[in-house]
């Protein structure tokens, strides 16, 4: 058993499942947005606004945002533990990623809230 502190999940399995689930959600979100853009034809600001005004889209967007953030955290954490053997560099990088992920999440909620 290897102990880890800065990883997102509690175990390797936990991270692994989050990684796959979040990928599925991001794919669904991308497909849905693509479908919207194609089926709408002329995407005006009003149409865009109306799309995001629904509760469904707000929840879906939040889910997708959460997925992006978790996916990035896990993925970049793995990259850093593979390719950054120097402790100081790894720590700074991980701190940067974690702060960016949290900031993006808060920012996203703020934007969705204001629609």
């Amino acid at each position, binding site marked *: *058993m*290897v*102990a880890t502190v800065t990883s997102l999940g509690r*175990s390797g399995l936990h991270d*692994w499942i989050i990684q796959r689930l979040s990928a599925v959600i991001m794919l669904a979100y991308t497909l849905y947005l693509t479908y919207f853009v194609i089926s709408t034809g002329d995407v005006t600001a009003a149409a865009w606004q109306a799309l995001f005004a629904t509760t469904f889209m707000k929840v879906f967007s939040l889910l997708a945002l959460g997925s992006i953030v978790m996916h990035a955290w896990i993925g970049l954490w793995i990259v850093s533990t*593979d390719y950054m053997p120097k402790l100081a560099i790894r720590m700074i990088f991980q701190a940067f990623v974690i702060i960016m992920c949290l900031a993006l999440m808060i920012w996203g909620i703020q934007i969705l809230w204001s629609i």
Partner: protein
Amino acid sequence: MKFSIYRYNPETDKKPYMQEFDLEVPEGSDMMLLDAMLLLKDQDATLSFRRSCREGVCGSDGMSINGKNGLACITPLSSLKAPIVVRPLPGLPVVRDLVVDMTQFYKQYEKIKPYLITNDEPPAKERLQSPEERAKLDGLYECILCACCSTSCPSFWWNPDKFVGPSGLLQAYRFLIDSRDTETDERLADLDDAYSVFRCRGIMNCVDVCPKGLNPTQAIGHIRSMLLKRGV
């Protein structure tokens, strides 16, 4: 036939270098690379490498042959393109020439507890297995611990102290599915961290090089399913 062989003696050399050799190989010879290297050792007695059984059983002479890990004793010269470039197994510290320090590899092997653990009453005679239960160990027990797979695995290069590696995981699975072993759950608990199993990215370098034709990637997949069943 031309050879280019990695040489390094940490006591006298500042850094490793490649030494060129030339060997007269009769046309149509079925000589193995190990035989050729023993002849090269006659030319230069300081050339160091490990070997023992010379028939693919002991796992001593794993090395990088023309860029691919394998056992010199079962690699026919006729299958190789000259010049034959021989280097030590990648990723492990070099003790001398083609001799590497296998400590990290063995430590991972030790970690997975490569022995049967049974907590139930010992039977009067022996612990029996049905032919079906025994068949589950095929493709696993044959591993000779040559380290060709683990030292070809990038995940093992980056984290040899944390990622168990293909060889160790193949053995871990060998004991996980042994019907006589009673520690399955504890074994799985020991593997469920971010490194031990989950660093495997499924590149299958291990499968590509295994001289015994084993499939560590598949075993790792089975372990992952067992972890999934246990955790979900």
